[in-house]
């Protein structure tokens, strides 16, 4: 099969995102990453929740699942279990992933299914028009109330590292090539990979803007040892500039490997329904 171009992954629906939305950059980086890996669109599934972010699968030519709010991760885990040959990408918003869906992350980490989770983090609930999300800046006045967040922000990278997510990275939607590169590495990583992607929402977030990110993003130090959890945690808690890159990366048995081992241990070969019935004689 000849190398597929980025445009070969583009779906037939035109995105309805606002002009300047960071989510466009993520979409392009995904096209680019898929093209680089020359994935067969029929063997890729993109799973999402609800939000502006949730619309992502519709803009690809791959299979997709646009599920309910906050449940993309377990849905995607089911897809991967059913057919481990598929490349499974999961997309969530910061509300979808870190608020209503937060409880699934530690357990996805514990299972370590071979999934690539892209959190399209714009620091706000966009589809519902501007409420605070767990990653909203303390400065963000919500569109409807003109109030600042009542609650402290969550640090998703520290959270993921503490959960022992086996690949933890941060990207920026407007740094498309670097992001595509992270996506490629995440897909190639065996196990559960989470990329928190800073994705400005010009419509509802006037604080975490592209201007802000342009001045505040720095690549993670090139000598950072991603195998070192403590270093990763320290980088995750960096409060000055915002580091992007791979924070943490370890190889643990994937869910597939665990399940395969169970199957082998259970002695699959000899089993027939009759054998099972006999246990109940």
């Amino acid at each position, binding site marked *: 099969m000849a190398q597929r171009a980025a445009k070969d992954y583009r779906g037939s*629906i035109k995105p309805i995102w606002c002009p300047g939305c960071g989510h466009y950059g993520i979409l392009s980086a995904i096209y680019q990453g898929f093209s680089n890996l020359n994935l067969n669109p029929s063997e890729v599934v993109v799973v999402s929740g609800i939000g502006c972010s949730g619309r992502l699968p519709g803009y690809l030519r791959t299979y997709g699942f646009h599920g309910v709010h906050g449940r993309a991760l377990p849905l995607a885990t089911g897809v991967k279990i059913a057919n481990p040959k598929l490349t499974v990408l999961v997309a969530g918003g910061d509300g979808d992933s870190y608020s209503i869906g937060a409880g699934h992350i530690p357990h996805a980490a514990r299972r370590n299914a071979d999934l690539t989770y892209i959190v399209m983090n714009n620091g706000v609930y966009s589809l519902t028009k501007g409420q605070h999300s767990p990653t909203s800046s303390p400065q963000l006045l919500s569109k409807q109330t003109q109030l600042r967040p009542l609650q402290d922000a969550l640090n998703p990278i520290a959270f993921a590292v503490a959960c022992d997510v086996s690949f933890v990275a941060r990207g920026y939607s407007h740094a498309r090539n670097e992001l595509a590169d992270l996506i490629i590495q995440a897909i190639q990583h065996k196990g559960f990979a989470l990329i928190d992607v800073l994705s400005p929402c010009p419509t509802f977030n006037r604080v975490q803007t592209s201007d802000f990110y342009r001045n505040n993003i720095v690549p993670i130090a090139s000598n950072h040892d991603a195998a070192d959890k403590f270093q990763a945690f320290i980088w995750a808690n960096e409060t000055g500039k915002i580091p992007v890159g791979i924070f943490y990366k370890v190889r643990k048995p994937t869910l597939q490997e665990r399940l395969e081992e169970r199957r082998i241990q259970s002695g699959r070969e000899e089993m027939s329904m009759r054998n099972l019935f006999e246990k109940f*004689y």
Partner: protein
Amino acid sequence: MPKTDFVVRIGGDTAKDPGIITTGEIITHAAAQSGLHIYTFKTFPAEIKGGQALFQVRIADYILLSQGDAVDVLVVFSREAYELNAPDLAEDAILIYDSGNFQPEPVTNRIDYGVPLAEIAQNQVGSLLSKNIVAIGVLTAILGIPREVMAKTIGEQFGARGRAIVETNLKALDAGIDYVNQNKIKPADYIFQPITPLPKLVLDGNEAVSLGAIVAGMKVFAGYPITPASDILHFMQRELPKFGGDALQTEDEISAISLAIGASFAGKKSMTATSGPGFSLMVESINLAAMAEIPLVIVDVQRGGASTGMPTKMAQGDLNIALYGVHNESPRIVIGLTSVEDSFYGIIRAFNLAEIYQTPVVVLSDQYLAPRKATINEPDLEEIEIIDRMIPSKEQLKNYRRYKITASGISPMAIPGIENGAYIAEGIEHNEMSAPAYTPQIHAEMTRKRFKKLETLTSSIYVDEFVRRYGHEYPEIGIIGWGSSEGVIREAVSKAEIKGGKVAALHPKLLNPLPVKHIMEFVRPLRRIIVPEANYTGQFAALLRDRCGINPIQLNKDVGLPFTPGEILAKIEEVAETL
């Protein structure tokens, strides 16, 4: 004439008299291995340790339909258990009690055997814990059970725990038998006569569901522990990998059902199992499966009480949420399992319907059915029809429309990996190409398409399989039941018929879409209709009023326990008086 149908019960405190359940299981297995039919019933305390429990087994040489009405043989170790269980004794019942512990007041017509069970266990066997097995020895002798049969069962029960344990227990068995022989206790008037055993399985409801699901081709199971459904999860964790499948305990019920939906979307038959509280958490995702048209089986093993309620007690309380637990409206098939055997075949039917109609199927079991054991004939796998979802043909893939509007409502479903089949499974309203779309016309068409599937099912050949009718050919009184009360109702109906009552029963196993035509035919000649349900408000009666325009006499029992045949019979007789 000696009775060939009798009920043995062991009752006690699970902390002070450990092994109540094991004792019952040993007797059950001995009977089953002798080719006899069994029907068990247990109650558990909610506590981990302590609290009164009972295990009861009805044994007969014909197929059994219920746990029976009264207890023929009762074994108790303490006064508390005696007092709790004595009211349930039949006339002429046998009471075996630990005479070293208490002395019951004598009752006419009851045969009391005081045996110093604990003393024998302590002194002759050297293990107080084996007092249950001493009691089994007593039963073995009194009921005339061949010693080899019981010894074999005990060997199997304790084999895994080593030779020494088996030996101790056999010693206890013999001590019990000896005691009866030495004291010349007269044997009971019951027959426990081994008959030529057909290949039969001894299963409880949860096991039957689990085996059926594997036969149906289920390959992914996800669940979260909850009484009384957890055993399905355990079964799957142990057995499913042997069939190339995967079973997972997830972090919660929402994750469990999401995982099952994802797996089914990706082409594997999938299931989850839970009880009421977990089912509540799943309704949002069941709705998603219906909207995105994903085949899915959800087993709800109902339990007592609202909210956390009474986890170890019985109820038929989740019909409403199974039917109506959905915001807005989406099609959902609901099946009520009626017996252990039906649990096996019913779950297979559930998978078939999920696959054909690409929609969630809710299967209702309950705490009465799930843990009780019964013998069933070994299923003939050749005879069982297994149906898989319709996938698009090459032709259809040329211009593939996942949500194509068809006459049946069913559209071929592509599976990831199929070239040219790529589509988005969509929970937002969408057009045929799975693109989000909200115009009045598209929503109207798509809603009609989705609900059309239920109409297609209603007019299909499958519905007949789901309706059972029993009893008089020209009845005046009719009983319409659902779920696990089938056997009890059937037994009551035959007892009523024997007494000359013109009574029949209809038992629809398909609860949505309801087989209205069958019900209307059944009720036409009736003068009275009785609907027994183990709930407070009468959920099925409400459904019948709504869908069939009939107004039945409700018989509701909501105390955490199943109906007995006698209760149904009494209602029939009460109603017959009014004719």
